[in-house]
């Protein structure tokens, strides 16, 4: 049962005061404190000038890092303590190492049943001839998934730092002025020797990179090293022929989509394998005959995905560093 209050009565209640205070109305404390308006302050222009000068002089004096005796003392103290700390760390590590099991021996704690199973059953369980590839992409795939995302997040931070964006209104953002993109010295010049060498070398380098990626489960190599080689080939091409040529087939859009598809494929494929593994379901992906190119279950497609991401990322790093965009 609510009783209707008159407006006058309502104005006396706490609720009214509280809501008035909340909505920015009259403040209950404002009226109770005596407030006298101050006399208008008139600054003497000369004095202001002098004050400003003094202020600057004080700042110069205070932040004069080169002639500050205390700061120098602090610096030398810091140097001495860090050298001492590093020497201490070195001694500690050397002593530790002297107690560790001997290198090269076969009967160490490291060579236990874990490594044994990777070597003995690896071929059968993962289908990869290269045991390391089988290990990082099948047995310990979660680490590798994290690793490829480390690369992804590093690219994102580099994009944040170095990408030059135009606003919608066409304003040039302040970074552009800092970056000074008109520097023609950063643009590659038409060097005949470099171009000739690049014409021969770039295809070979890229084919070698592709070989490393596709052969990742059969021999040394894999997505990451192959991708880096391809990236190096692309960078050489860019250096020889300039941005205009590369932009014909490789822009930021291509980069974005390649990265997206490869990483999504990686995530989804691994999710499938994790999910089936954990719930003890049978995975439909065959391992194939060991030694054949189409073997090793998911390892080959994953290597290709990682290779694509790495190649694009390396090229993207270079392009970002050079001119802040593709």
């Amino acid at each position, binding site marked *: 049962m609510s009783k209707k209050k008159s407006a006058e009565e309502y104005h006396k209640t706490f609720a009214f005061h509280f809501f008035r205070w909340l909505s920015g109305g009259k403040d209950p404390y404002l009226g109770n404190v005596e407030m006298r308006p101050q006399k208008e302050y008139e600054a003497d222009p000369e004095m202001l000038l002098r004050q400003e000068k003094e202020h600057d002089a004080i700042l110069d004096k205070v932040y004069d890092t080169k002639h500050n005796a205390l700061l120098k003392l602090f610096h030398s103290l810091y140097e001495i303590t860090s050298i001492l700390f590093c020497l201490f760390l070195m001694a500690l590590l050397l002593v530790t190492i002297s107690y560790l099991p001997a290198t090269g021996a076969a009967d160490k704690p490291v060579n236990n049943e874990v490594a044994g199973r990777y070597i003995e059953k690896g071929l059968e369980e993962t289908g990869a001839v*290269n045991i*390391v*590839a089988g290990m990082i992409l099948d047995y310990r795939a979660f680490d590798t998934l994290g690793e490829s995302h480390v690369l992804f997040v590093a690219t994102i931070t580099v994009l944040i730092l170095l990408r030059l964006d135009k606003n919608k209104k066409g304003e040039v953002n302040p970074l552009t002025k800092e970056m000074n993109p008109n520097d*023609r*010295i*950063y643009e590659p010049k038409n060097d005949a020797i470099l171009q000739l060498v690049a014409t021969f070398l770039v295809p070979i380098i890229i084919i070698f990179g592709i070989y*490393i990626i596709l052969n990742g489960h059969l*021999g*040394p*190599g*894999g997505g*990451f*090293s192959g991708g*880096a*080689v391809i*990236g*190096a080939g692309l*960078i050489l091409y860019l250096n020889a022929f300039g941005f205009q040529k590369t932009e014909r087939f490789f822009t930021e859009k291509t980069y974005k989509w390649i990265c997206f598809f490869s990483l999504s494929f990686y995530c989804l494929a691994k999710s499938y394998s994790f999910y089936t593994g954990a719930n003890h379901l049978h995975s439909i992906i065959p391992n194939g005959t060991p030694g054949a190119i189409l073997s090793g279950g998911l390892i080959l497609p994953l290597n290709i995905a990682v290779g694509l991401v790495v190649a694009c990322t*390396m090229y993207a*790093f*270079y392009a970002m*560093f*050079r001119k802040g965009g593709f």
Partner: protein
Amino acid sequence: MTAFQMILMGLLIICAISVSFSRNLLNSVLIYMSFSLVMSLLWICLESPDLAITEAAVGAGITSVLFFVTLKKIHAINVAEKTEEKKDE
């Protein structure tokens, strides 16, 4: 093989120390590049060809290239040459 490994490790330490004391930034990056190369040789000796390939492609390749671009951006490579080129424009 052991002697070869020891020589390589000696080279590693020499490279690491000379990086710290070299005055020129370009020199220190070049020394770091050779450090990576020696490292990849060492990994061949330690029977890890995967690592050797990756280190050669990444440490001696991509990372050094990125270092060079950075040096160029911060005008640490040959200031004189740069000013000449500006005149040409």
